């Protein structure tokens, strides 16, 4: 059975730890990155099955990282879920315009995150 790979991109150690704890309920290979730039590098290198992307990060924010991933040949089709503190419509609109597939808001609800991940990965 192929183990799905998920790339977690966030500058908050706490959020990364929380995402790992939640996703531990299923069997995934989890890889982390601390900002958008590192996230793009790891996505190109590892070609994950899904990316969870924070929005506000140093060096490169999540929206810009998603745009660049969508332009890359190797990464343009990887599903991306934005993880955002901003629930406003504008922020979500910006997320979809940049090319993300879905979003979850912080603080992260474990059931919501698991359900969305499972739906996207077809688990």
């Amino acid at each position, binding site marked *: 059975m192929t183990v799905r790979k998920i790339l977690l991109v966030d500058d*908050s*150690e*706490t*959020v990364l*730890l*929380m995402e790992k*704890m*939640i996703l531990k309920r299923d069997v995934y290979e989890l890889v982390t990155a601390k900002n958008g730039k590192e996230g793009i590098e790891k996505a190109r290198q590892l070609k994950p099955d899904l990316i969870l992307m924070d929005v506000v990060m140093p060096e490169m924010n999540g929206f810009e990282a998603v745009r660049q991933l969508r332009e890359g040949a190797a990464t343009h089709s990887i599903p991306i879920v934005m993880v955002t*503190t*901003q*629930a*406003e419509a504008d922020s979500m609109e910006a997320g979809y315009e940049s090319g993300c597939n879905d979003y979850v*808001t*912080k*603080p*992260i*609800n*474990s*059931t919501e995150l698991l359900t969305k991940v499972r739906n996207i990965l077809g688990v």
Partner: protein
Amino acid sequence: MNRSNRVTPSSTVRKTRVTRTKVKVGAQAKKSINRNLQLAQENRRLKRRIESLKKINARHLKRAKESAIAQAEMLQRDTVGDSFNQLEHRDESLINLFVAATRLHADLDRTGVLTAIREILSDVVGCRAMAILELDRASCALAPVDCVNVETGMLTNLALGAGPIGKVAQTGAAYFGTADDHNPIACIPLKVTDQITGVIAVFGLLEQKLELRTGDRELLEWLSPQAGLALHRATIQTAWRAANGVDG
């Protein structure tokens, strides 16, 4: 010969009497038979009615039974659903607790611990505006050491007992209230054993977070001694390193 003298033979009289009686009896019998026929008909009609009512009753009973079964199943589903929801909430609370504990005690550096406290408040609880204040024992006043989306000016040199923050620092009892322009929605004392070393004040929540839930309050109260100890230990560690020229 007159009529009164005419003699009717007794046999004729007898015959006439018998005939009359027979006619009488016949009429009565006919009446009785008709009556019996009517009663029998009525009987049959009533029997049919009874059968019909029995069938209707049986249908009602069946429906009532099915309804009772459906209600019992729904009640069981609700109970199971409620139990499942409770388990989910409990599971989420445990994850939050584990994450908070791991983050708080992962760093020996004061800056790292302050970052961990800030992240726990924003990423786990959902706070948008907050401040961490420490108590200066000499001046008995609180001063902010870390603020997010809060003007530090209004928090400088807060006296013990002044406002909700000062009262929490004085009494050591957590405060939960409603947000307004100047007052926080939650104040948690930072403690090292029984000694109060500071206060965490929450001034606002993220837009999508409508209120502090029971699980959030429990986590904040748990944070009181844990964050207090972690910060105290990190402060000592950082000072020791600085004094001894030790890096990292």
